């Protein structure tokens, strides 16, 4: 299995997968830690990565340009974790927190609007309509 980087260079890898936190984990035994740091710090290379196995495209990854860490596994396997720009767990959490605040404000505004509408309807039902009905009856008499 190999990765073909955006600049057409290649790296033999053992695996590439998206993890639950949204990061891309690439495992390899084909480069040293220093080489991996150099490769995966080049954002142009990382703009588009194509994973191929026996000339078939297995996966394509775009914009995983945020190099996070090199991880050492047993048997000399090294792993590289990458995030999409703006999509690290901390950034996603901040975005979600901001969205949550905005949604809460919208919910509060809608709730206030709903209460106002309900009060208006209540007033129409208990005051306006009965008054109109009485007025109509008096006119009829």
């Amino acid at each position, binding site marked *: 299995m190999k990765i073909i980087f955006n600049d057409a260079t290649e790296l033999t890898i053992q695996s590439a997968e998206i993890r639950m936190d949204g990061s891309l984990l690439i495992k390899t035994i084909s480069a040293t830690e220093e080489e991996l740091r150099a490769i995966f710090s080049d954002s142009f290379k990382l703009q588009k990565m194509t994973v191929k196995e026996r000339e078939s495209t297995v996966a394509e990854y775009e914009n995983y340009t945020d190099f996070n860490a090199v991880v050492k596994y047993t048997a000399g396997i090294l792993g590289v974790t990458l995030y999409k720009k703006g999509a690290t767990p901390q950034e996603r959490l901040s975005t979600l927190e901001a969205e949550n605040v905005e949604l809460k404000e919208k919910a509060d505004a809608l709730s206030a609007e709903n209460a106002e509408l*309900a009060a208006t309807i209540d007033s129409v039902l*208990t005051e306006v309509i009965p008054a109109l009905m009485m007025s109509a009856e008096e006119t009829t008499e």
Partner: protein
Amino acid sequence: MKDMTTFIARMIMKEADKSTEAGQKKYRAYFVRTSLYKAWKEDVDTILKTDGYEAVIVEE
């Protein structure tokens, strides 16, 4: 017309949460001072009793 039932019950319960007297006043507005909403009275009474607001049900 289930929406009408729940709406009226909700308005009465909202007032009843302020005071029993306020709840009774609202109840009168819907079911004593006018007969316009008598079609929903029975169902509203059921809701009020079920939710613990029986004290607001008045006849006059």
